[in-house]
């Protein structure tokens, strides 16, 4: 990773909600085509942080940000950055599966249509490719016209992943994507995420430390709005440098 410039580079990021400072000067590099996991106890700022990577925090009126986040060397908070183009490049999957109350097909096609693709054949191809990438094509291919809310939660989450992939993002942010799902669905999504890293840079927030150790290449440990430690996942989980990290992963708090 030392030879390759990072896909995203965060420098001295500070974030406030009103008077409350949620993030205290974070620095982090997110390597390309790897899986970076954020772990830490509830309220440590990891979800807040992942949401600032595609400027979803812009939706919160009281939110204020200092510092820079670079995507391929360009600051995403600069005035020149088109936030809608940014979110096309940096996609997101949420904690609760949130498919639109539309057909499965229209859910997947929504993103490409948003970005100007109208040709039916092209859309068909994108829908099929995205659903295959999200490992759900075989389960839904015969009823693409069904309402996406009528399928199971685990399937809905894979529909949401497919929907995010359909706009061909470069980075995929996942905010606790399996916390609302059963173990079998969780296993499927973990497997899927491991496959996706060949093509995408993935950032994943998780409460589940086994999950972080199973799927991620890099791990960042968050505590009270600081990044305490960051490095290769294996090292963080076997031989962390910081005592707080050690305490957290061994389950002494959090």
């Amino acid at each position, binding site marked *: 990773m030392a030879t390759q410039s990072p896909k995203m580079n965060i420098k001295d990021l500070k974030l406030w909600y009103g008077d409350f400072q949620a993030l205290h000067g974070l620095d982090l590099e997110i390597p390309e085509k790897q899986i970076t996991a954020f772990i830490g106890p509830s309220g440590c700022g990891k979800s807040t942080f992942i949401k600032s990577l595609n400027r979803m925090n812009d*939706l919160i009126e009281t939110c204020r940000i200092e510092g820079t986040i670079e995507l391929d060397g360009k600051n995403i908070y600069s005035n020149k950055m088109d936030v*809608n183009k940014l979110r096309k490049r940096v996609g997101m999957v949420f904690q609760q599966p949130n498919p639109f109350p539309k057909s499965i097909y229209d859910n997947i096609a929504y993103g490409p249509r948003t970005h100007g693709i109208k040709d039916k054949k092209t859309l068909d191809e994108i829908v099929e490719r995205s659903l295959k990438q999200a490992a759900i094509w075989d389960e839904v291919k015969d009823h693409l016209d069904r309402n996406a809310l009528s399928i199971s939660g685990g399937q809905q989450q894979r529909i949401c992943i497919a929907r995010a992939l359909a706009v061909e993002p470069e980075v995929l942010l996942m905010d606790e994507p399996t916390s609302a799902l059963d173990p079998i669905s969780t296993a499927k999504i973990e497997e899927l995420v491991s496959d996706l890293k060949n093509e995408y840079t993935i950032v994943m927030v998780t409460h589940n430390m086994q999950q972080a150790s199973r799927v991620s290449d890099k791990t960042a440990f968050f505590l009270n709005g600081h990044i305490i430690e960051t490095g290769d996942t294996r090292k963080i989980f076997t031989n962390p440098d910081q005592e707080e990290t050690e305490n957290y992963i061994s389950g002494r708090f959090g």
Partner: protein
Amino acid sequence: MKNTKEAAMKGVFFLSACFSIIALLLIILFIFANGVPFIAEYGFFDFIFGMDWAPTNNVPLYGIFPMIIGSIYVTLGAAIVGVPIGILTAVFMAEFCPPILYKVLKPATNLMAAIPSIVYGFFALRVFTPFIRENIGGNGYSVLTASVLLGIMILPTVIGLSESALRAIPKTYYTGSVALGATHERSVFRVLLPAAKSGIFSSVILGIGRAIGETMAVVLIAGNQAIIPDNLLSGVRTLTTNIVIEMAYATGQHREALIATAVVLFGFILLINSIFLYFKNKEAS
């Protein structure tokens, strides 16, 4: 002691609940008991599809077809005027309105619902009627005048319910849309609005119910000729205005014919509410 108190309160709640049911049953009983015998005697088809309303003729004629068509025309007209404006206003209020403006707009639309209908009618009589007479044609008492006025009168219903329907849509649909790079406008019109369609449809149905039942405002500006209007500037009489114009002096069979008109109106309201419930149940299942 506690049990008797609870039982007593249960009884009070039950009686309160019964009160509105009983009131409704009595209304139905009254209009059907007074109206249905007349319809049977005069002939269902002659009454519903009769083209002539002439209660003071030597041989009185009680055909209400012109009024049925009149009610349908002004109600459709009200929907054409009021529904697009109402829905777009609701979208604006729920998703685009600056908070300062909202503080004015919201009470204003609520106030619109509280203004007595006779005041609307008087306003239209002094403003719309001369305007239409001088700028568009006819004598100003017309289908067009009634449609525009009723379109305004259904706005608070359409706006209020559509806005709640939009606000009830989970925020996650919106965030899901913007996270794909969609603009605010696209997210509102392509995700939120379709997601709220059953609630918005309900608001339209209730608005139509209000329009078809409106009386006092319409009677002032519709011209009230018992004819099938052949153009937008022609005068029109609705089922409701038919009753209110003549009830004061009607006696005997004439009076029964007016109550039978109310039976027909009631039938329309039932139909509208059934459509409303049908779509609501369909959405739920």
